[in-house]
């Protein structure tokens, strides 16, 4: 340990410190400290023994370690009152550490301070001034303000500089006292001593900030301040104040600050400091931090006052240079400053866009963050393509805590300035692929909305998403959008030919494989699996060969442990079995989603979207889909233009509307799914059911719905009340020659025992000649390995009169 100190160390203090430090545990330390404190307390109570300052010093050390020391407060008061300088010194130190204005004891030192302010020795005065400026209460300030004012005028520089800062404290504590110090502050500006000058400038800043009228009066000092600065900047080397070639940077910074306050919102004052600021900006050496500190303050001043445009450009250029500085502190403050002016001086900042974008690659996390903010603020229609390249690059390697912000910033920029729809979709996909885990929930419906709007790009989009899905199924948002698209545009995916991408053969099994992988993966969230299941279901109307595979997937998930998934599967099952005639309509192509429409803002999976299909769709869809595949329906929608989501069908649609009966369509989409809730058609359909066949435990009931003058839908429901399961259950039907018959796919081909499940099949009839309607039905099944066949003739249909009308 080095002891070149002018003053000898306090041995008792250092012995105690040594003792405390050699304690090996916290417990031991506490023991030492308790003993020491006891001894100190005892000493305090004794008469003056010459060791008081050491005792108090010990206590202050203990206090710094975090132990209570309030019993030393009175000792501070006593020590301050002592005639001994050494005791005063420690006493005042103790007061600053242990007393604050809230303590009663602080009042007791007011008198000592008052006396010491007029002490013959300036070092004693200094103690009082320092303590008053540190912890003087409002009362003490009021009491001693006149004394401080006196010291400001009459004393030597050493005292004046401290008195100035005391005055600052007083003015902060008691604003009205500001007026008292204005004259003294004004005259201090003509002092040569830098310490005093600095104090004067700080005092004037405080007075101006507190009182706008005072600020007006001090505007007259601008020429003086300019002179002082000029002296500092242009003078030669001054050993007293030099810091790395800059003459008194602390004072320069303070004066620049005062100039800023005086020049703000004032043309005249700003004009008179213009030249000086330009001079400082150009002459200050920027190779060291201290020079840059002055430049920084200059730039802040230039940008805050009413400076002429040339000077502003100069200031922004300095910030631009800062961006290239090796010192990351300098780069950081350049960014924060540019951020503040990117709104007001946008073009000037744009000139440095390249450097700012480079800072995205900076090592320092704070600089990166600032660069991101600034880059996003600089994106415009003219630079969107190049900026997005950089931002996407940044996204792929940026620190995790910045990803969400970067992703959302990119989305906003893309939305505002996207040069084309394809670019927009590509960009959003890129973000999902790179940072899908960090995007907000609304991203999925937003992207879906965007995709539906870009109808020429459906094929391209679904191909791209399919490929992305093959590579990685861990990013939930990406997977959700991909599933939705595959479900929705699966037909386009399977067609294979797409102008925008290389042709790739995707089979029905490939597409279903992809969706099943998502369904089964442990990485998929429940919401994602919902998307995948719905997409799988939707494919049932867009593929031709593998519907059975879909049926089996859907039926498996009917017993899934996830309730949401289970419900979906059950509903889709029902769609297959009971409402097969509606399946195509329910699952057909979605209309273009407008922003702020229910389908758009809903963040949940397309289970909701299915609900929201307007009934007009239902009306158009059903008869068409008997004959046409789904994409022709899409073409029809295009013919109708943009009115798809209105509930009133347009004129072109009327003739196609055959009208599903009310109880099937329901009043709104929501009712539709309610209808599909149960397994019992009886409770849902008011149409009467007739028992057509009953043998060997197998029953066949039928119900009818008139679709039109000549059209009729018959639903056959088979049930097995015997004790053995039946498999390969099929129904065949025959009708009179002139009647057209179309049998829809049955819901299944197995009839389990004891009626636990039914098989339904829809038969669509058209009787244009209105002949007497009869239907022969052949029932075939296998029971315990042996085949069985039977035939039944149905002569009367419920709901129709005897003539079958």
């Amino acid at each position, binding site marked *: *340990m080095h002891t070149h100190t002018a*003053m000898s160390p306090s041995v008792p203090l250092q012995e105690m410190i040594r003792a405390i430090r050699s304690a090996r545990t916290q417990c031991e330390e506490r023991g030492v400290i308790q003993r020491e404190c006891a001894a100190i307390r005892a000493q305090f109570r004794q008469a003056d023994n010459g060791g008081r300052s050491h005792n108090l010093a010990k206590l202050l050390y203990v206090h*710094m370690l975090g132990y209570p020391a309030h019993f030393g407060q009175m000792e501070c008061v006593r020590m301050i009152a002592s005639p001994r300088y050494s005791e005063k010194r420690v006493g005042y130190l103790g007061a600053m550490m242990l007393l604050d204005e809230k303590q009663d004891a602080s009042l007791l030192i007011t008198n000592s301070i008052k006396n010491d302010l007029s002490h013959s020795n300036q070092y004693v005065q200094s103690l009082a001034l320092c303590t008053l400026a540190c912890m003087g209460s409002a009362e003490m300030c009021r009491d001693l303000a006149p004394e401080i004012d006196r010291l400001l005028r009459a004393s030597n520089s050493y005292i004046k500089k*401290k008195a100035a800062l005391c005055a600052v404290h007083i003015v902060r504590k008691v604003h009205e006292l500001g007026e008292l110090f204005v004259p003294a502050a004004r005259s201090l500006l003509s002092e040569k001593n830098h*310490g005093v000058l*600095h104090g004067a400038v700080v005092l004037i800043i405080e007075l101006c900030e507190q009182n706008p009228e005072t600020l007006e009066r001090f505007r007259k000092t601008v020429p003086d301040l300019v002179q002082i600065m000029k002296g500092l900047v242009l003078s030669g080397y001054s050993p*007293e*104040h030099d810091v790395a070639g800059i003459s008194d940077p602390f004072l320069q910074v303070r004066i620049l600050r005062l100039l800023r306050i005086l020049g703000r919102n004032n043309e005249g004052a700003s004009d008179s400091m213009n030249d000086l600021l330009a001079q400082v900006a150009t002459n200050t050496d920027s190779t060291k931090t201290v020079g840059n500190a002055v430049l*920084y303050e200059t730039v802040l001043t230039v940008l805050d006052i009413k400076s002429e445009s040339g000077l502003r450009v100069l200031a922004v250029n300095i910030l631009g240079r800062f961006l290239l500085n090796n010192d990351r502190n*300098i780069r950081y403050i350049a960014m924060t400053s540019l951020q503040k002016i990117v709104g007001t001086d946008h073009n000037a900042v744009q000139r440095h866009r390249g450097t700012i974008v480079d800072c995205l690659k900076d090592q320092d996390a704070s600089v990166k963050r600032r660069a991101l903010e600034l880059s996003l603020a600089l994106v415009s229609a003219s630079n969107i393509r190049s900026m997005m390249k950089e931002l996407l690059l940044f996204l792929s390697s940026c620190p995790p805590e910045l990803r969400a912000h970067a992703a959302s910033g990119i989305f906003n920029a893309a939305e505002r300035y996207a040069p084309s729809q394809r670019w927009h979709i590509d960009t959003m996909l890129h973000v999902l692929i790179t940072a899908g885990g960090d995007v907000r929930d609304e991203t999925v419906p937003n992207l879906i909305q965007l995709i539906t709007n870009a109808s020429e790009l459906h094929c391209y989009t679904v191909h791209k998403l399919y490929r992305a899905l093959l590579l990685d199924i861990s990013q939930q948002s990406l997977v959700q959008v991909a599933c939705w698209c595959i479900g929705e545009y699966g037909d386009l995916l399977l067609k294979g030919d797409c102008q925008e991408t290389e042709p790739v053969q995707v089979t029905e099994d490939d597409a279903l494989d992809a969706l099943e992988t998502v369904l089964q993966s442990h990485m998929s969230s429940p919401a994602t699996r919902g998307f995948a299941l719905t997409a799988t279901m939707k494919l049932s109307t867009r593929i031709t060969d593998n519907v059975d595979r879909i049926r089996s997937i859907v039926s498996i998930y009917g017993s899934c442990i996830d309730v949401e998934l289970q419900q979906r599967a059950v509903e889709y099952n029902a769609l297959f079995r009971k409402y097969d005639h509606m399946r195509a309509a329910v699952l057909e192509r979605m209309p273009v989603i407008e922003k702020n429409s229910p389908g758009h803002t809903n963040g949940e999976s397309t289970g909701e979207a299915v609900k929201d299909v307007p009934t007009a769709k239902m009306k158009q869809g059903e008869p068409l889909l008997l004959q046409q595949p789904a994409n022709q329906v899409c073409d029809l929608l295009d013919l109708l233009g943009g009115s798809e989501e209105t509930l009133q069908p347009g004129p072109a649609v009327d003739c196609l509307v055959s009208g599903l009966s009310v109880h099937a369509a329901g009043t709104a989409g929501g009712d539709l799914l309610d209808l599909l809730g149960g397994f019992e058609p009886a409770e849902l359909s008011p149409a009467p059911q007739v028992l057509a066949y009953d043998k060997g435990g197998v029953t066949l009931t039928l119900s009818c719905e008139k679709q039109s003058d000549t059209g009729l839908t018959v639903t056959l429901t088979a049930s097995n009340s015997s004790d053995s399961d039946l498999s390969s259950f099929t129904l065949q039907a025959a009708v009179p020659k002139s009647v057209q018959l179309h049998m829809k796919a049955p819901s299944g081909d197995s009839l389990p025992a004891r009626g636990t499940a039914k098989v339904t099949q829809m038969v669509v009839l058209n009787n244009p000649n209105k002949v007497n309607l009869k239907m022969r039905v052949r029932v075939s099944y296998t029971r315990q390995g042996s085949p069985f066949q039977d035939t039944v003739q149905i002569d009367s249909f419920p709901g129709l009169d005897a003539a079958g009308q």
Partner: protein
Amino acid sequence: MLTCMRFLLLFSRQGKLRLQKWFTPMSEREKKKIIRDMTTMVLARQPRSCNFLHWKDLKVIYKRYASLYFCLAIENQENELIALEVIHRYVELLDKYFGNVCELDIIFNFEKAYFILDEFLIGGEIQETSKQMVNRSIEASDMLQETMEEYMSKPAF
């Protein structure tokens, strides 16, 4: 009340406090919380980060010198770069006084570290911008202490 500087803390790499100067009135509880927050935040910083942090409505400027962290909190509108210079100036003053100052000097002579600080800053503002002036003042005060003791012929120790 707004001072340029709000507080100055010195602490070791293990988070042990070596000096605390508060430029605005604060309760003991608040002080303890700030000390905890500052030591945690600063000690968690990566080695090649910049020296500026944001904490509540303040800027925190910190720099490591050997085994000591100097942590200075300033108002939001203050100049960070000059704050770094303030820290550096204080270190230079300590170094001149103690001669190649190290953490132990500040531990065993903590009251002197305060005396030096009180000749450099007052009420959260710089009081003297000249290194030599501060040094001279400290020497003179120390001299006064010695001679006053002799004059009063009462042994200091």
